[in-house]
């Protein structure tokens, strides 16, 4: 490569809001449900039906705007985006083009290269479309409008990012803010957070932007990172070989690690946007805006400081615990139910994180309750079970949110505290393992480990290993 290039990236992030009902009607937003059961005349585009804005959608959108330092438009409107497609029952999508609810914001991100501010051009509200299902057997396409009218916000960044690392940091920051606000669960895999990447290349030192492409179908942070790298190389190759980058929308195929063109700017549709006459302009009073501001939750930075002061746990723990809202909530609830903070933290950042990684899950997927975790912690505190058993119980807790007290009872996992019986067992172990005993006496201190192991096996792990150690040493 003869020249040095810079990658310029801007993102369009769609976030599904966590409202119980749809944006313009009272239908449920619950995931699943038999096709077309969460529908009504409004979200199926029946003649004569009219949209009415769900106030919660507006409040969530404003709260995200405030948390990302946006200006809130106190006079805002909905516009119709006209295009024909069967998943879009009215053949227009109600969105915001001319006067979006939030604009001119920014979020601060931190990468190895340091801190940086990423500008937010605007945040607007819109409705999701239905889902098309192709029936190969009947060779026809069916449409399910359960998703039609599910509320979305689209967060449009400025072209301020220069690497995949910055993009991921920006997305993680957005996700954290939105989760902390409770405005969405932001799951990429399930599509409640979706990012389209606008990317262009320019020579270092050149002021003008290059021609950009828009990449769609990115379902994970890893896919996003791979797509950015793939597109960066593709565009540089084009420029190096004297060709031009075409402004187009491309679809990323993560399994092939390759993107292909979906449509170019030339065949871009004219959406004939105009203000939706069925919806009155949105007027947000100062009082309402202040009310939303006042409701702002504790964000990560504040939470980190409080954890240090209130719980006195190490920075390392705090970093992991506050990295997702779900984990932080779980931690706080566990402590509130009477657990020692450090012990709760240990379970969450130790075993929990290990199992999440092993099972390729997100912290949002954790299903166990703080009540049951507290029970487990109390069982170990009172030495009813030992640490080995506790790990086994935790495995069950993680999987099925079992009640540890009942589980230990049913499975007979309580630690045996009968020292006489234990002494007898150990005597037997010593008698049956003369080799290890000899090794021990010959100075191989580690040989005691084998004897502890045998004892644990004989007692099915229900004894305190420390006590076993102590008795063994005595007897030997």
């Amino acid at each position, binding site marked *: 490569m003869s020249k040095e290039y810079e990658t310029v990236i801007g993102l369009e992030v769609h976030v599904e809001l966590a409202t119980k009902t749809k944006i313009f009607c009272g239908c449920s937003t619950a995931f699943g449900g038999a096709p077309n059961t969460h529908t009504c005349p409004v979200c199926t585009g029946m003649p*004569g039906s009219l949209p009415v804005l769900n106030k919660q959608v507006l409040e969530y959108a404003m709260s995200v705007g405030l948390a990302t330092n946006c200006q809130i438009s106190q006079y805002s409107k909905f516009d119709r985006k006209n295009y024909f497609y069967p998943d879009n029952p009215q*053949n227009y999508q109600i969105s915001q083009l001319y006067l979006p609810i939030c604009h001119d914001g920014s979020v601060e991100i931190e990468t190895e290269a340091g801190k940086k501010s990423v500008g937010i051009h605007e945040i607007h509200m819109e409705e999701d479309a239905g889902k098309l299902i192709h029936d190969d057997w009947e060779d026809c396409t069916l449409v399910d409008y359960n998703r039609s009218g599910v509320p979305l916000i689209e967060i449009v960044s400025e072209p301020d990012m220069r690497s995949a690392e910055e993009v991921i940091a920006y997305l993680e920051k957005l996700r954290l803010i939105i989760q902390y606000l409770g405005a969405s669960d932001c799951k990429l895999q399930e599509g409640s957070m979706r990012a389209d990447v606008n990317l262009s290349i320019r020579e270092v030192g050149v002021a003008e932007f290059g021609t950009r492409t828009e990449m769609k179908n990115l379902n994970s942070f890893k896919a996003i990172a791979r797509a950015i790298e793939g597109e960066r190389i593709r565009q540089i190759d084009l420029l190096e070989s004297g060709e031009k980058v075409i402004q187009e929308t491309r679809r990323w195929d993560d399994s092939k690690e390759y993107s292909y063109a979906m449509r170019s700017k030339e065949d871009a549709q004219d959406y*004939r946007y*105009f203000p939706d006459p069925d919806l009155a302009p949105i007027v947000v009073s100062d009082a309402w805006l202040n009310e939303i501001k006042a409701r702002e939750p504790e964000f990560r930075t504040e939470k980190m400081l409080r954890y240090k002061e209130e719980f006195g746990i190490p920075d390392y723990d705090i970093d992991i615990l506050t990295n997702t809202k779900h984990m932080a909530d779980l931690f706080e609830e566990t402590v509130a139910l009477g657990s020692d903070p450090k012990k709760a933290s240990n379970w969450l950042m130790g075993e929990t994180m290990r199992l999440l990684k092993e099972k390729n899950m997100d912290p949002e997927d954790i299903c166990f309750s703080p009540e049951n975790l507290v029970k487990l912690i109390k069982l170990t505190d009172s030495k009813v079970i030992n640490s080995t058993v506790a790990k086994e119980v935790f495995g069950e807790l993680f999987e099925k949110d079992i009640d540890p007290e009942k589980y230990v009872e049913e499975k007979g996992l309580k630690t045996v505290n009968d020292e006489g019986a234990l002494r007898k067992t150990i005597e037997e172990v010593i008698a049956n393992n003369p080799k290890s005993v000899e090794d021990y006496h010959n100075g191989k201190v580690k040989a005691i480990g084998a004897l502890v192991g045998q004892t644990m096996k004989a007692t099915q792990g229900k004894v305190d290993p420390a006590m076993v150690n102590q008795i063994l040493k005595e007897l030997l």
Partner: protein
Amino acid sequence: MSILSLSAVELAAKIKAKEISVLEATQAVFEQIEKREGVLHCYVTLDKEGALATAEKVQKQIDAGELTGPLAGVPVAIKDNMCTKGLLTTCSSKILGNFIPTYTAKAVENLEKAGAIIIGKTNMDEFAMGSTTETSAFGVTKNPWKEEHVPGGSSGGSAAAVAAGECFLALGSDTGGSIRQPASFCGVVGMKPTYGTVSRYGLIAYGSSLDQIGPLTKDVTDCATIMEIIASYDGKDSTSVDRESELAKKAGNKFTDALVNDVKGMRIGIPRDYFGEGLDEEVKTSVLAAAEELKKKGAIVEEFDLSLVDYAIPAYYTIASAEASSNLERFDGIKYGYRTKEFDGLHNMYKKTRSEGFGPEVKRRIMLGSFVLSSGYYDAYYLKALRVKALIKKAFDEAFAKYDVILGPAAPTTAPKLGESLVDPIQMYLGDIYTISVNLAGLPGICLPCGIDSKGLPIGLQLIGDCFEEKKLIQTAYAYEQARGKFQTIVK
């Protein structure tokens, strides 16, 4: 015959007094329909079975004292662009030729709750686009006064049905004059309420920012009475106005309170712009005579310049067509309505379905609307039209600082002959000149008969009020009606 000569309010009173049963009234209407409908064709769909069943049910509720309202038991007709659950609703279009709604429009629901008997759905210009009811996909409606003439439109079926005694009152919708102009042509009373007064939920939209449901009735008393029933705040319509709110309360919504035979001191303005070129001499004479009548009763009548009248038609056709082009996108052959028989892929299906399903006037307005919203033209046409709309509203605001009511004709002529108007759409559009500004400004307007021309066709008088001032219109119209005396009936 004697039943049919009653007004809706008179009929309801006789039903209440047990002089006439609901069933008798309903049967009388269906007998009249049998007699006249073959020629007039006011209805797209008749629901005799449903109406008779409802009549029996309503009679029981009246007898039990559960229904005591002023229109309980009265047979009504509904324009075919309002959804009626289980009853065909076509907008007089092939594309909705088989459409049976799953819900009922709010205004219709209000009538049903008041004990009205819905007897059928009236013919109209396709999707309310037209001024003669001739653009209907299901045949023309004829003017009951002279059958070779149009009834006006787009609520022509509703107006003709009221005039011919094929119902006692009817609902219409008015986007640019579609209630007032057919009322004028058919010699009945028609009111377009302030935008937001009657819920649009269930009204199949043409131009959403201009559409408003209103009544077509035999007299002003019936009009005020039904207005109290259909006007309601509706949480399902974001543009619905709470008439109990501070903004609207001063004008009030007890419309029947305004049935007072007194216009002393009422300030009435006559816009000179409404009496210029293009206005038929007989219409002019008749309307000015009506103004004179009101003056005699103590009203202060003077002429003034409204201005901007010439800009109303282009602004209206830009805005209404733009909204219509988007509103009518949902008719695509996917979910309901007509779908072409044979097609090759999705886009071909859309194209063929819509080409075959819509008539020429609807296509013309979809194309016009799509054009004015296209990128590059949006500012020059659509935004400019919105600015004109705002200026027209301002001109009316200035007028209403001086006058309580504006008086003028509803249409430049009486009903033209069938087939005359469709030849020249521009000429047809110009016929809306006196009614259109009212929709652009969101104002209430009423039309009532004030004479009969030399051809034997009725002439309409239009009164326009400021926002929420329906009561002033009703009062003025009622006072004029008292002076005029009972209008000639053409119930044959």
